[in-house]
């Protein structure tokens, strides 16, 4: 199973309470860092229209879509505010040697 873990970025590539985008194998991911330095990963595209969430604003553990302000809790992937009503898929993360790894499908 080890090979499913992907090296996504360095810890400092993401600012506190922020998000970056990451692509692997043609799939877009969004990687988040909370104020208390926890790291999370979800699908990179909004479930409403396929817009990159990494351009949106992070407030606490909520990511807001840049296009119509659809909201998701990125720790669970749950849709928190219409127009987005389908949850985001989440991926496990792990920190090793100062880097963030994500467990892809």
């Amino acid at each position, binding site marked *: 199973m080890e090979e499913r873990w992907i090296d996504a970025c360095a810890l400092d590539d993401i*600012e506190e*309470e922020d998000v970056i985008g990451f692509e692997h194998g043609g799939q877009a991911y969004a990687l988040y860092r909370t104020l208390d330095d926890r790291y999370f990963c979800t699908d990179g595209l909004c479930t*409403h229209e396929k*817009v*990159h969430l990494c*351009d*949106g*604003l992070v407030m606490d553990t909520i990511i*807001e879509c*840049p*296009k*119509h*302000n659809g909201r998701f809790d990125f720790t669970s992937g749950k849709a928190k505010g*219409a*127009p*987005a*009503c389908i949850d985001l898929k989440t991926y496990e993360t792990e920190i090793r040697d100062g880097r963030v790894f994500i467990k892809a499908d």
Partner: protein
Amino acid sequence: MIIIGSGEAGGCAAVALREAGWAGPITLFGEERHGPYERPPLSKELLTDTEPPRTRTSAEAKRFAELGVILRPNTRVAEISPERKLIRLQSGGSVPYENLLLATGARARLLKVPGSEYALTLRSFEDAWALRHLLGAGGHAIIVGGGFIGLELAASAVKLGGRVTLLESRERLLARAVPSALAERIRLEHARRGVLFHFGTALSRIERRAVILDNGERISGDVVVCGVGAEPETALARKAGLRIDNGIVTDDRLRTSDPSIYACGDCAASIHPQFSDKPMRFESWQVAREQGALAGRNMAGADERQSIVPWFWSEQYDLHLQIAGLPDLGETMVERILTDETQLQFHLDHGGRLVGAAALGKLSDLARDMRVAQMLIARNATPDPAALAATGRRLKTLLAA
């Protein structure tokens, strides 16, 4: 509880009513054959996507069954009787209400010139369907009106390979809603794509495939489309004796002059205490959604004042526009240059309070800062202009101040 108009606002109201604890019946009457669907794509993807168009159901409508909201499509409400607290349906029959919500939206305005019935307009899915066929043929479209709908239509027609001539009665585009520097950039982008503009024109007549200007000039094409704004749908309210002033007038709780009747969305002119003591009407998807939800909560007894910061977006080609608050109320402007292609304007009133923001360019460059701007406006913030302009500093840090 009865809601008239099953558009964006009506759908949000139905869900909010239930979530606010109202356990009794909720019925949504709509004259369209669809339940609530998203209108913004009608002038954009729906015209240009290669796959056959479908209505995009609003998020709330997907929850009606689960929440026990009854949707009555194809049902036009003909009359309200406020004294007897019931509505009468066009098809006959009447239904009593405890509280009533008017979410009747707006309809495309027609020009008052001979032949205006030849011009197509865009408001509903069916309108978009017809336009898709005509614009898809790739001919020459004559678009009357340089507002959002006209410009988005122009961009879609160009994308489909057509030619566009756009006529505007004023001297500039988007005169109602967009700061002039940004409107000028939008004009340049259209011109670069080949759109021909005529400003300051008045029409004297419309024909099936041509318009005739008041100076006698004739412009021929393959289809004439009119995008000269929308009129609030106030007929029912007017007949019921409710106060009307460019929309159904409400207080800051979205209550009309009859305490059992509320109004929200494109049909409503409501009090936004933060911005003005005069009723204001918006044609914005976000406002319709938030007002719908607020009206629903208040009908269930919340008694909450409106604190919505208007928010609007438009897309033309690769250009993205977002507007938050009311840039018009500003007296000074501070610019934040995000990238070569993307600029953001902050509009501050005489007391230095941020009242509006407008950004044009790439969505990925502008979205975060615009969202922060919206939050600052909501807080009546008086941010330091130098900090607003300082691109190197994350705007979000101002929220902590």
